[in-house]
């Protein structure tokens, strides 16, 4: 059983919702990332999304754009991100890690090299923001061979017909984008999420995780009650950005994560 499948099975047994966190690898500097990931797990995160910094993050809002810029200023590359995952795995064998980013990073490394290395380093899934299932045949062969799940997004604008296509192709979990907009947007409307997630549920065979625009523990709890889990990204990235010294980041992240965990379990 893959780490992601195992994780969701265990959460279901415990009657818990999945807490998925997002931070950008190498932000604000490479040495912070692995301790930050461990602290998120300590604070109750179930699944770690790790952003691969890219020069042109066209679906990201200002918070994640700037986190990407900070990481790139430190010279962070995809290869370094994979090393960070491998480092993290030395003391954590069980928490699933999903890389999130833009396709050109992977095309540049070469699909087969990337998936082989990612698998060796302990990556479990991949979310490519600018890769819809129609264009993914080149990647999915390698993903399958290396047992890495390709996770697709479903948006508020996705028509029913496409939901079926996505549900047939998706692995690991389904990422429901809770609003029309970029990451970090602040117009989350849980009422409309509810309606659309219920349509999605009627087709889905895999767990549904809701993300984009979740900034407070209250929003997290409300969204989680509609689905199997939630993603918090920009809020964690902002927490890191507003921490005075890098040494304090793990501590503050853990406390922040704990506040979301408590609300989810509450």
């Amino acid at each position: 059983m893959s780490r992601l499948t195992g994780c969701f099975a265990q959460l279901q047994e415990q009657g818990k919702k999945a807490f998925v966190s997002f931070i950008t690898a190498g932000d604000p500097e490479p040495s912070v990332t692995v301790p930050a990931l461990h602290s998120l797990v300590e604070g109750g995160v179930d699944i770690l999304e790790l952003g691969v910094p890219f020069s042109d993050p066209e679906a990201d809002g200002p918070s994640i754009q700037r986190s990407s810029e900070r990481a790139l200023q430190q010279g962070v590359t995809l290869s370094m991100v994979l090393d960070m995952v491998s480092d993290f795995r030395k003391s954590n064998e069980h928490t699933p890690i999903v890389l999130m980013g833009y396709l050109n990073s992977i095309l540049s490394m070469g699909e087969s090299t990337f998936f082989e290395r990612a698998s060796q380093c302990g990556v479990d899934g991949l979310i490519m923001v600018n890769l819809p299932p129609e264009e993914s045949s080149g990647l999915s062969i390698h993903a399958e061979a290396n047992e890495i799940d390709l996770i697709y997004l479903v948006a508020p604008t996705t028509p029913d017909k496409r939901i079926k296509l996505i549900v047939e192709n998706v692995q690991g979990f389904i990422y429901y984008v809770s609003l029309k907009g970029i990451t970090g947007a602040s117009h989350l409307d849980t009422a409309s999420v509810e309606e659309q997630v219920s349509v999605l549920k009627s087709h889905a065979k895999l767990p549904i995780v809701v993300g984009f625009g979740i900034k407070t523990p209250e929003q997290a709890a409300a969204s989680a009650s509609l689905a199997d889990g939630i993603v918090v990204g920009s809020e964690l990235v902002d927490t890191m950005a507003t921490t005075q010294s890098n040494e304090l980041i793990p501590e503050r992240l853990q406390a922040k994560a704990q506040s979301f965990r408590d609300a989810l379990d509450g």
Partner: protein
Amino acid sequence: MDRVNDPYSAPDELGHFGEYGGRFVAETLIHALEELNELYESIKSDQAFWAAFDEDLTNYVGRPSPLYYAQRLTEHVSGAQIFLKREDLNHTGAHKINNTVGQALLASRMGKQRIIAETGAGQHGVATATVAARLGVECTVYMGADDIVRQAPNVYRMKMLGTHVESVSSGSRTLKDAMNEAMRDWVTNVDTTHYIIGSVAGPHPYPAMVRDFQAVIGRECRAQCEERFGGLPEALIACVGGGSNAMGLFYPFVNDLKVELIGVEAAGKGLSTDEHAASLCEGKPGVLHGSRTYLLADDDGLIKETSSISAGLDYPGVGPEHSYWKDLQRAQYVAVTDEQAIEAFHLLNRLEGILPALESSHAIAYALIEAAKRPSSDRIVINLSGRGDKDIGTMAEIDGIQI
């Protein structure tokens, strides 16, 4: 050339030109692109649509644009005869208006109340602001902060047309960053907004759709050549930023294999430096802004900052159909430096009394080299994609003159 279908039929229904093109965007935008594509497919055979388009081109844009024999330039080179396709004489001063007039008709059929665009040189921004004023809809144009400085007259023009110009100060502060920001706006406002992409770039159906609107350039040119010298020219030359003026001129000749197609990219400070924008000459295939195409990226796939004196060519990607044509060798892609473009800019002023855009000056610069290699029986058509009023500030600064 046996791999180009005869008649040529790219792209396929998913927008692929061979291995290029496609639709690499966030899921939120896919439905809007599908709707746009459906509409675009439906208007292909809709005579009322094309009648309205032609009416606008004739009486609003001022088409057909002339095919002008540049006698003094020809004498100067003493080689092939040089003709200029005068897109600079269009309303708003460049070829960009052909596309915005077409997309404005689509936007109004879709009932969209808001229009957005990206712009580099500001010509596409002005052309978009112009059609938005005429439609009476709200318009926002994204423009890199550096381009706002170097193309100031166009910024003011857009404002006078009632458009909001949004300065983009992320990344390299030029065209690619403006396009990122326009995509972010579109994701957020997709229900109410139509995004008028200004070149044959972006996700399907934009590359094919913009090509089809710009193809009026090549269709007119064919007819004008037939009438003028009873045949087709030996070569067509156009500058390539995203590639829309080049594609517009070239496309109606794609099956005429005897007509050489030459696209001219910006070599900036030289191809041996890192400061250029020659994606086809120096790049490699990758994915940016919705399509797979030749890109200037580093070994980690990060998009490089580009450099060109001309804001409209200062872009690290290129339309996917040009990538396809490069690999098929249906077209040839070359590059000229800032310095060569500046020289050509002055030469056209002095010899022909025509002020070309700095973008178009790249095509002229290469045409001088190409014409010199050819006999006087050959005929070359250069796409004079726009006029240079917007560049007077840049040129004056180079010459150390305060205006």
